[in-house]
């Protein structure tokens, strides 16, 4: 009965306890985080199974029924998202054990607490059924994210500050849009709002409200041309924070937009020009992201730019306006999160051995770190879109959907970005394969780092092979029948 909320409570509780433990028994901090994340993941699995068998689960927080109180609403898709978030956070947390314990000294407790809070925030964003609660959760997730990304030497604080400014404006715009909707409908609950909006007259203000909300969320998800903060934030920060947040932040925002589009905002309320603008921006994001990625020297920055392109994939997919493309966008959330996780985990392991992530530092990696590189190759192949890895199938749906609606430019964008990804990743592979590692290089692969990475990489294959199942059980039931 409490499964819905129990997915998030361990994280919150864990973060409070981590602070208490940090000032009393600091050895307990790291295990506490493991327990919290593992509990959360466990409850997510339970929740997913429950939702699969009994349908959408609703939880009334404070016992007040909607629309007066705040509710959590979990359907199959969001249950999958919850599992994705907590699972990927758990893997990251386990993989970076050494960094978390050693790298932060007396700040470990604060770091662990913030990490748990940001995961809780992201999960809450997925779960909540209340527009304003969503805003608060966005801020919980973002604020702790700023801190995690801002911790570091050199340019990390500046990048994070940049992110903070852009992110706050995005969240504020979202808040403004919610205010518009509230003044027009008088409610904040999503289900209630959907009901009222169906009957509400379609006016310029309604269009304005929807446009402002979507605009704000686009800013938050780093859609081109609002992507400026993303590469810096992920490339400058500590590898832990990057590996934790890169798979989550943009994807969760994409999830929010999808949820609003398919569950709350009726088609008539979307301004007519908006889908076209979105397609334009999405396509532009793909081209610009690929181009910029090609020009990067730092490999983390390069992958961050690929993320910009991937956001373009998803935004394009959801605004194409047919069922196939929407399925593709939703599937790509999972796919992109998993492959980003794999890549960043692998890069984190490599960075620990080799320092700065420039191409020259990746010599001979295939020989010295074979398992890490194998996982990296899988992640890269998935980004390129090689079957049977997960990335191929979401790309397939997107291509197919674009073809259905005659969005040929978007199709070209998808293919070009795949090809650019081939070039980008094979640059790395070539260096790692052909060049000899330097004399002084002594790479160590420890099982505790390789295991989470291997799990993530194997998941790419497993999820790819079961993508039909994922679409059938998790996604197909969520897309309204009216979307053809």
């Amino acid at each position: 009965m409490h499964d819905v909320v129990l997915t998030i409570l361990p994280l919150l509780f864990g973060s409070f306890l981590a602070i208490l433990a940090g000032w009393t028994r600091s050895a307990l901090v790291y295990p506490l985080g493991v327990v919290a994340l593992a509990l959360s993941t466990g409850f997510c699995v339970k929740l997913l199974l429950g939702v699969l068998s009994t349908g959408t689960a609703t939880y009334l927080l404070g016992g007040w029924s909607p629309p007066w109180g705040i509710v959590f609403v979990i359907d199959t898709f969001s249950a999958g998202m919850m599992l994705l978030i907590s699972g990927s956070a758990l893997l990251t947390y386990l993989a970076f054990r050494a960094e978390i314990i050693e790298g932060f000294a007396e700040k470990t407790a604060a770091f662990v607490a913030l990490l748990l809070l940001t995961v809780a925030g992201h999960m809450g964003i997925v779960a909540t059924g209340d527009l304003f609660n969503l805003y608060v959760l966005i801020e919980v997730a973002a604020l702790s994210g700023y801190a995690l990304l801002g911790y570091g030497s050199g340019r990390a604080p500046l990048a994070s500050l940049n992110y903070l400014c852009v992110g706050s404006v995005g969240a504020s715009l979202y808040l403004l849009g919610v205010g518009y909707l509230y003044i027009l409908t008088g409610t904040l609950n999503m289900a209630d709002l959907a009901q009222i909006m169906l009957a509400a007259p379609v006016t310029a203000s309604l269009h304005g409200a929807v446009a402002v909300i979507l605009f704000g969320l686009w800013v938050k998800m780093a859609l081109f041309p609002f992507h400026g903060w993303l590469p810096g934030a992920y490339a400058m920060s500590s590898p832990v924070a990057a590996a934790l947040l890169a798979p989550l932040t943009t994807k969760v925002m994409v999830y929010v937009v999808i949820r609003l589009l398919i569950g709350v905002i009726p088609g008539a309320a979307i301004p007519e020009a908006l889908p076209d603008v979105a397609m334009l921006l999405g396509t532009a994001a793909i081209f610009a992201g690929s181009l910029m990625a090609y020009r990067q020297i730092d490999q983390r920055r390069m992958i961050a730019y690929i993320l910009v392109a991937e956001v373009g994939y998803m935004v394009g997919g959801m605004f194409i306006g047919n069922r196939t493309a929407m399925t593709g966008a939703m599937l790509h959330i999972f796919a992109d999160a998993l492959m980003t996780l794999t890549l960043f985990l692998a890069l984190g392991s490599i960075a620990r051995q080799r320092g700065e992530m420039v191409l020259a530092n990746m010599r001979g990696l295939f020989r010295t770190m074979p398992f890490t590189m194998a996982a990296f190759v899988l992640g890269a192949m998935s980004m390129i879109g090689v079957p049977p890895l997960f990335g191929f199938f979401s790309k397939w749906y997107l291509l197919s959907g674009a073809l259905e609606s005659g969005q040929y430019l978007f199709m070209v964008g998808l293919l070009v970005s795949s090809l650019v990804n081939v070039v980008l990743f094979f640059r790395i592979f070539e260096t790692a394969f052909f060049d000899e590692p330097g004399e002084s290089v002594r790479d160590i692969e420890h099982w505790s780092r390789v295991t989470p990475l291997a799990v993530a990489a194997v998941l790419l294959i497993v999820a790819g092979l079961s993508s039909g199942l994922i679409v059938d059980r998790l996604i197909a039931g969520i897309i309204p029948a009216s979307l053809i």
Partner: protein
Amino acid sequence: MKKTALLAVILTGALLILSMENFPSWGDVQSPASLHLSRHFIEKSYEQTLTPNLVTAVLGDYRGFDTMLETVVVFTAALACFLVIRLPRDVCTPGLFYYRHTRTGLVVRKHDACELPGENPTFERVDSDWPPHDVVVVSTCRMVIPFIQLFGLYVVAHGHYSPGGGFQGGVIFAASYVLLAVSHDLRTLVHRLNERVTHLLSAAGVLLFFGVGLFGMAMGLNFLDYGALEGVLGMSLASGHSLGILLVEIGVGMTVTAALVIIFKLLSSRGTVTEGL
């Protein structure tokens, strides 16, 4: 750059103004915003929570989860500041120590820290970059601060009946400490409320909130359902809710106080938490 910015801003503004076309006019009693949810809150909340201040009732009870997260945000901000700017302890020892002769106001500089006798000090330690010291300010603040803190407590406790609540009270309480730091020096504040205490207090505040929520779950109700307090001390359902709000507000107050003090300490001492504004 500036011109483009101006143009973009004006364009956005114009679009936003256009989009207000269909808003109900300002102060319209029959606008949807005043009818749907808010009508229910105004008419039912006293009956359900026994709290005349509607804002407190909605904030603490109907939207209690929001409030909890909001507290978590403040808690997060404190941790974030700690993570970002707190310097490692071994770096925090200053190279020079300044001592002031209390009678004459002369300042002495030393390379090592001195043991200062606790009773009747002839010398006191001062910050390296905040030497002025005014008796009037110090004495006034010393007198005012207790009253400010008392007022803060009042605001927390009286939130049910008048404007106020955990946030406002907590902020006022924190402000009193800021005043202490400004009028004396940061070391005095750190001496009263050291880092460990503030961190534990901030965690304890959210934990109190959380605990009220968990109590609801333990009694077989939903998370944060204050109805679980019904029967505790022989309370009715509505006064259980009222009590729940009070407990929660206390938790909020604790966290907000502690968190703001943490942030202020860190910012004003640039992460050393020894000397500062």
